């Protein structure tokens, strides 16, 4: 019996070729001639792959059966590339291009010099494709393949007229495994471009069906599909999507990795930046890599009360210039900053590894999000500030009003998104015409320092941005107590937000905006119609990516009882496959938590939970884990969502079972937690998804996907209740809260506050 390895996503092509080569060249396979591979014609790499396989066969002398298909993951390939900001697509964007590619591959496979190396297997239900292959073939060393129940009439003719072998295949498995396959088939056949669909469409003339795809394609101008923009252009002309390399493709990964490696031993130096100059203090902190404390990342000077006072004064004095700078000039600097961040991706990735313990993809995503913030807020500011607004005021007259900055904004950012959230807050405040005093999390001060250096290089004036790394008590407290502060943007814990609110309120001046993004106790609800394999993939990604250190991370997976055992089995399997380790390595899925305090608190919680709850699974830590601050990804089953206390900010997932008829009670329990940040829903029932979404008091709901990785301008991010005040970061209303409206010819003593 022959075995054929199926084809998967384009990102796994190189991996599957390596695997194929290893198995094919194994002594047990030599002399067999029945070990084959599927090749997808929609892939732009299809022909090179066939050449490579032919060379492999020639080297060993064993026939390789190649099943040539058109490809089944086209939609996902397009989406993934857009999400990752890649340079292009690995697949053709027109169906007729794929059809031409299929025929080109077929011509190659049928050519005389390939005979005896590759056994072509043509899997198509397209009569034109079949007819073309039969016409082109000069020998009979190949076969056709058709799905049981499809193309019977077509292949009866093939057998009758040509006597070419036709293999009939059928999926084998139980109902739950086959249903997704069946749905995909139905959708493919239902697409307007499908031959099967067009065949039964009475309005489709026979001449169209029989037209050679090359002829069809040659009529297209342009050859690519203009309705599918390149990943960089998905937001239209005005805003470029941030770029990222594809780390699963060797030709992109190798040069990127080499550049990152150049920075891995670098020692960074950071400290307060006041009026454009980095200053030193007597409080110097050594920075160590969270994944291995033997590695020194650099040094940072922490600010003190005296430097806080200096920074506020500079920012206060700088406001007059900055807010009167035309918005277009302000936002040009932010646009340049976005480009500079992309230019410095390798260094920033290395710094994210070494200071924040971020994995490779997390580090790239971090920089990309920062880039998106720069461009999005710049664009929004241009829209908001360019033209005056007409408004009827209480006097009954229409007044022209303009937006303006409020003064000095304090931006207090967390360590879990040390570049993206840091720059998100700062660029929003600056775009709106405020000057900024930024206080980054003390654990990730070096990243903030590097970001401010790039801001200055991009043209943000020295008096507009001040940086004060340091401890909360030494820097945050005196900053927020200063009466000159006109607003605070904060991301961090609910408790710290409350403290800041009290400090601001204690001042003898009018209340100012406090934009707080705080924690979550985020749930994912899955019902019995969901696809368990997809659920587990998304749940594991949501709970354990970034070692669970995301505000949006999944904390409690709510599973309908009917499928709970199946989901738990899959979850155990998936967690056994997770790899903790050095985040600079491609093989690492889960990096360290940020520091020893976080690690000890999480380990203590796990220990406490083990006493009274069922441990479902725990990922084994790698050999050198004790050199850093690692916490094993862990899942517990609990009997009620109400058992959850405060948020555990790490790789810990809880699972509860619920009865289908108690769905509303479950939603009530989630709402009663008081937090309201993210919610995941997995169901194939649209009505159920809509019902849960409308009832849940959360900021961001994600349906049939993971619940992390909100994209700027696409999924504005922020919660309600204990999870934050709003407005949502990366959304159309965010900048407004950083502004005030002024009548152009002011007759009022005070404006909107």
């Amino acid at each position, binding site marked *: 019996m022959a075995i054929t390895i199926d084809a998967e996503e384009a990102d796994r092509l190189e991996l599957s070729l390596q695997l194929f080569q290893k198995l094919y060249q194994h002594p047990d396979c030599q002399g067999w001639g029945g070990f084959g591979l599927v090749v997808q014609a929609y892939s732009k790499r299809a022909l090179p792959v066939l050449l490579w396989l032919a060379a492999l066969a020639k080297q060993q002398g064993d026939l390789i059966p190649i099943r040539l298909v058109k490809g089944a993951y*086209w*939609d996902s390939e*397009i*989406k993934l590339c*857009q999400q990752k900001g890649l340079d292009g697509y690995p697949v053709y*964007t*027109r*169906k007729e291009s794929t059809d031409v590619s299929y025929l080109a591959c077929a011509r190659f496979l049928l050519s005389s010099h390939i005979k005896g190396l590759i056994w072509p297997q043509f899997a198509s239900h397209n009569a034109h494709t079949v007819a073309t292959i039969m016409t082109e073939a000069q020998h009979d060393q190949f076969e056709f393949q058709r799905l049981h129940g499809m193309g019977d009439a077509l292949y009866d003719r093939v057998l009758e007229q040509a006597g070419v072998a036709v293999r009939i295949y059928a999926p084998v498995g139980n109902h739950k495994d086959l249903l997704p396959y069946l*749905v995909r088939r*139905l*959708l493919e056949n239902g*697409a*307007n*471009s*499908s031959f099967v669909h067009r065949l039964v469409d009475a309005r489709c003339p026979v001449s169209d069906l029989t037209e050679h795809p090359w002829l069809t394609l040659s009529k*297209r101008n342009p050859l690519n*599909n203009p309705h*599918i923009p390149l990943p960089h252009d*998905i937001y*239209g002309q005005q805003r470029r999507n941030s770029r990222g390399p594809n780390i699963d493709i060797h030709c992109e990964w190798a040069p990127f990795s080499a550049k990152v490696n150049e920075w891995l031993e670098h020692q960074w130096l950071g400290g307060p930046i006041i009026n454009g100059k980095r200053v030193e203090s007597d409080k110097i902190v050594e920075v160590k890599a969270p994944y291995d404390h033997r590695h020194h990342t650099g040094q940072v000077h922490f600010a003190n009360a005296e430097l806080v006072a200096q920074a506020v004064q500079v920012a206060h004095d700088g406001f007059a210039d900055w807010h009167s700078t035309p918005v277009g000039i302000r936002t040009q600097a932010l646009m340049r900053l976005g480009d500079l961040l992309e230019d410095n991706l390798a260094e920033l990735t290395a710094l994210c590894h070494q200071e924040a313990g971020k994995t490779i993809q997390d580090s790239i995503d971090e920089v990309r999000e920062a880039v998106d913030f720069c461009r999005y807020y710049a664009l929004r500011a241009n829209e908001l500030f360019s033209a005056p607004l007409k*408004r*009827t*005021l*209480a*006097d*009954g007259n229409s007044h022209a009003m303009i937006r303006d900055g409020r003064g000095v904004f304090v931006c207090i950012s967390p360590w879990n998104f040390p570049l993206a959230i840091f720059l998100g807050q700062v660029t929003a405040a600056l775009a709106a015409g405020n000057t900024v005093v930024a206080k980054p999390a003390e654990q990730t001060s070096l990243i903030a320092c590097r970001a401010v250096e790039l801001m200055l290089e991009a043209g943000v004036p020295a008096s507009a941005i001040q940086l004060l790394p340091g401890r909360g008590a030494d820097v945050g407290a005196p900053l927020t107590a200063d009466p000159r502060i006109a607003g605070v943007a904060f991301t961090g814990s609910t408790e710290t*937000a*409350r403290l800041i609110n009290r400090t601001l*309120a*204690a001042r*003898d001046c009018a*209340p100012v905006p*406090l934009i*707080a993004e705080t924690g979550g106790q985020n749930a994912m609800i899955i019902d019995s119609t969901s*696809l368990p394999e997809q659920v587990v993939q998304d749940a594991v990604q949501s709970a354990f990516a970034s070692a669970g250190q995301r505000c949006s991370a999944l904390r409690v997976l709510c599973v309908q009882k009917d499928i709970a055992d199946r989901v738990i089995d899959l979850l155990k399997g998936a967690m056994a496959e997770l790899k903790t380790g050095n985040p600079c390595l491609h093989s690492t899925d889960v990096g360290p938590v940020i520091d020893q305090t976080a690690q000890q608190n999480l380990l203590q919680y796990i220990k406490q939970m083990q006493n009274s709850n069922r441990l479902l699974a725990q990922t084994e830590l790698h050999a050198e884990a004790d050199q850093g601050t690692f916490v094993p990804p862990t899942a517990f089953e609990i009997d009620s969502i109400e058992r959850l206390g405060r948020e555990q900010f790490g790789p810990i997932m809880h699972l509860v079972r619920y009865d289908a008829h108690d769905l509303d009670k479950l939603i*009530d329990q989630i*709402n009663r937690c*008081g937090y309201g940040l993210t919610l995941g829903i997995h169901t194939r029932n649209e009505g159920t998804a809509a019902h849960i979404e*409308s*009832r849940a008091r959360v*900021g*961001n*709901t*994600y*349906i049939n*996907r993971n619940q992390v990785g*909100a*994209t700027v301008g*696409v999924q504005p991010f922020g919660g309600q*209740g*204990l999870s934050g*005040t*709003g407005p*949502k970061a990366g*959304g*159309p209303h965010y900048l*407004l809260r950083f502004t005030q*409206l002024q009548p152009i010819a002011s007759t009022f003593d005070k404006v*909107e*506050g």
Partner: protein
Amino acid sequence: MQHSNTQDIQAASIWEAWNRRGFAARCQLLATALEHLPAHAEAALTERLARQLLDDARPLGETLELPGPTGESNELYLTGRGVALVLGTEDSSETLVTCQLLATLACGNAAVLQWPGHEQWLTLLVEALYQAGVPRAMLALDTGTPEGQLLGLNDLRLVVLSCRPEQEIALNRRLAEHEGVLIQLVAETDLQHCPLLTSPDFLLRLVTEKTRTINTTAVGGNATLLELGSRTV
């Protein structure tokens, strides 16, 4: 006459139903009440400002479709924050209290209303709103609960009032002492020009935003996307 009490206001399921009605339906309902407002000195001003607020509130119900990757739908929409306390002070006017209350309700919040010394007038106002169709459980007139107790209301998300600047500072301090949610204070302190009430940003302070993301390529593929790839032009 029977008014709702603060306990009724905290019934989450009723608030959900009110919130789900949508901005346009609530504004339509509240607009009918404008013709039956109790008499007061600046009734014409009240009606003009209230109509402007309701006009501003209607478009807030539109769901905003956001650009994103092919194969995913992303939407942003607004809802009420929850329970709001609408307070009048010795410096408030009927115009300000009425407009702030209407704005709060239009944005999908439940409201507890208190204005010491003006209970009789408020009773008429509340009755006009009930008559217009505001559910009784969405609007409670409170006449005797101490302010401190009201500020401790379970699920309180918002305090809307008109007052002097020093009162705003003092109330903000009291709210900051609260242990739960950061309660939003929306205070009009320029009682002559009402710049906050007439600002286009005012209503955004009374709502919260929700984002809804649907992976439309899930479970077997996306026919729309396949079709997009096969367009002939």
